[in-house]
């Protein structure tokens, strides 16, 4: 029995229609299963464009939203049924990194306060001087100089520094799982590498699993062990990152990879790119049908099933109907 486990079982999320004028409910996330334990820490990337349900998935994992169907369980207990003590434990061990380092701080508090609060709240530090020592050590761990950071306000720091403060704060909580929602989309490319390398270090040194949510498959490819590609709430493709990115099977994964801007003209964007923006909530079949080059009439009607391409590589597409059916659960269990 692992000390830490977080399990999603067929969890889905449908956002209700807000008013009568609203067109209807939005299926933000179709049933998805995955499991993270502390037995084998990994970086799992969740990739997709806006509206693919990746942030909804993050908020289910973090317990910000209740699943419409299915379960999210922390150490075998449903999130909604956690006792007060378990809830506190859950909040400490599952930590978010938010996208916007400019909007996620209360600018009236000094950095000291932001870092000290979790130590007090979760009773991690034994004394004020212990707290101080922990804060200094952690700041150094994330590559900041305590003397230049403490005593300052968030507005006095750059985006990259703020994102590192965010990492320092969650490190102090001794988490088992970090849910990083687009942690580098708003910072410069030179800082991007620093933050991503830090995340990798957390995995290697502290054995923390990371769910890395991104629209950028290039960074996902660089740092993740496994990847889940979402399209309009459905898992299009999943599995070991190398396999998925180096030999993508789903047409959507291919288009996502070809959209990565490369610093050369060989892999140019000149080719046509079709997209749809209208709401497909009430349609049946594969959501990608409208823009898929390989679509046939059948795609519109039949729900694509997840099939195993090879060990730890799964795809949900009609093109691979001859392959054996699989459970996504297996993706993140097998290694």
């Amino acid at each position, binding site marked *: 029995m692992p000390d830490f486990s977080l399990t999603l079982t067929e969890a889905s999320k449908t956002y209700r229609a807000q008013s009568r004028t609203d067109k209807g409910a939005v299926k933000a996330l179709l049933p998805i299963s995955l499991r993270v334990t502390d037995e084998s820490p990994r970086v799992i990337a969740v990739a997709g*464009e*806006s509206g693919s349900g990746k942030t909804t998935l993050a908020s289910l994992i973090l317990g910000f939203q209740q699943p419409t169907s299915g379960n999210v369980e922390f150490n075998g207990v449903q999130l909604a049924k956690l006792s007060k003590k378990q809830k506190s434990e859950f909040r400490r061990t599952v930590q978010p990194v938010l996208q916007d380092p400019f909007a996620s701080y209360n600018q009236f508090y000094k950095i000291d306060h932001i870092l000290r609060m979790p130590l007090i709240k979760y009773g991690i530090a034994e004394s004020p001087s212990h707290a101080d020592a922990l804060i200094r050590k952690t700041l150094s761990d994330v590559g900041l100089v305590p003397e230049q950071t403490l005593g300052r306000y968030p507005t006095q720091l*750059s*985006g990259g520094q703020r994102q590192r403060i965010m990492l320092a704060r969650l490190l102090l909580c001794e988490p088992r799982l970090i849910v990083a929602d687009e942690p580098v*989309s*708003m910072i*410069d*490319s*030179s*800082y*991007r*590498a*620093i933050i*991503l*390398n830090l995340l990798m270090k957390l995995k290697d040194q502290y054995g923390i699993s990371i769910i890395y949510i991104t*629209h*950028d*498959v*290039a*960074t996902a*490819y*660089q*740092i993740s062990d496994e990847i889940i590609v979402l399209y309009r709430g459905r898992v299009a493709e999943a599995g070991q990152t*190398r396999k998925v*990115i180096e030999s993508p099977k789903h047409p959507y994964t291919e*288009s*996502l*990879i070809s*959209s*990565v*801007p*490369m*610093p*050369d*003209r060989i892999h*140019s*964007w000149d080719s046509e*790119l079709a*997209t749809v*923006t209208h709401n497909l909530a009430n349609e049946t079949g594969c959501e990608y049908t409208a823009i898929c080059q390989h679509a046939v009439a059948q795609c519109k009607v039949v729900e694509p099933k997840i099939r195993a391409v090879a060990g730890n590589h799964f795809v949900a597409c009609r093109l691979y109907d001859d392959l054996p059916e699989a459970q996504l659960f297996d993706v993140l269990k097998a290694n």
Partner: protein
Amino acid sequence: MSTELIVRISDLSVTYETKASTVTAVNEVSFNLNRGEKLGIVGESGSGKSTLGTAICGLTKYPARVTSGSIQIGEQMLFELPQKERRATMLRDIAYVPQAAMNSLNPSMRIRDQFLDALSRGVSRKDQNRFDDIIEARAQRVGLDLSLLTRYPHQLSGGQKQRVVIAISTILSPKLIVADEPTSALDVIIQRQVLKSLSEVQVASNAAVVLIGHDIGLLAQFVDILAVMYAGKIVEMGALETLLTNPKHPYTKKLISSIPSVLRRSNLAGIPGLPPSLSELPVGCSFEPRCEEKIEKCSISSPSLKVASARKIACWLYDSDDTSTNTSVRVRGS
């Protein structure tokens, strides 16, 4: 392609006045663009790229101030024109596509009315119907569905808003389009669509473009000439292909190697250290403290932009002693 000169920036400097000190955000930047040429300016935050963008458009606001240099648009020297003519020239010839499209539209006006606003200052309400064709043509050019015109900005997605902003800001068919990170905060697929829209607008009016960004990969999809800015100065500038395949300046090399690839898995390389504070610039080259190829001279004096290896470069490593510092030598795109 004709070689009509669209914009000539000469020794442009912009400073910010703060209580503590005066910092130079843009430091003697010069470049020319001909009709149809596309220049990309890349740099980290604080490199002065956005300040340069607003200065070209004449939008510099206190506490920023243009302290030296000149901007020539077509035949006209922008700073020498009387206020009224200057404003007219800027409105007619330069389009500024701002970074935060989300905040650039009036939330309480329908999209069509915002188009009209840009087109028809001082035109009476009943004459406004004649603009319908223009508005619809422009909206379609950037790939917007015409039904969106009757909506309010909050009913549009980020990519749609950015395309509306591109269509509105270029509706007067400008000679020069300055786009400041038009795709930041958008996901890759939407980025691709927005750049495509920008490209269509550019082709239609054959305008010169200055595209500002921090993502070389993205800029490479669009521009012909690349300028790398660091601490307010252009440190390397040349044809895109030349710079990408054979970067010379240590900073450009680092920038290119820090781009994550989907072709090869490798260690992510960052750029060690931090950009210098503009109020405490090093005496020598601004990049010297972070540079891995520095030589003795680097910490003593600052290199100037010179022509070497088919580009302009400001680095002591490539500073030949011949005095061919003719800054009017153009480094052309292919």
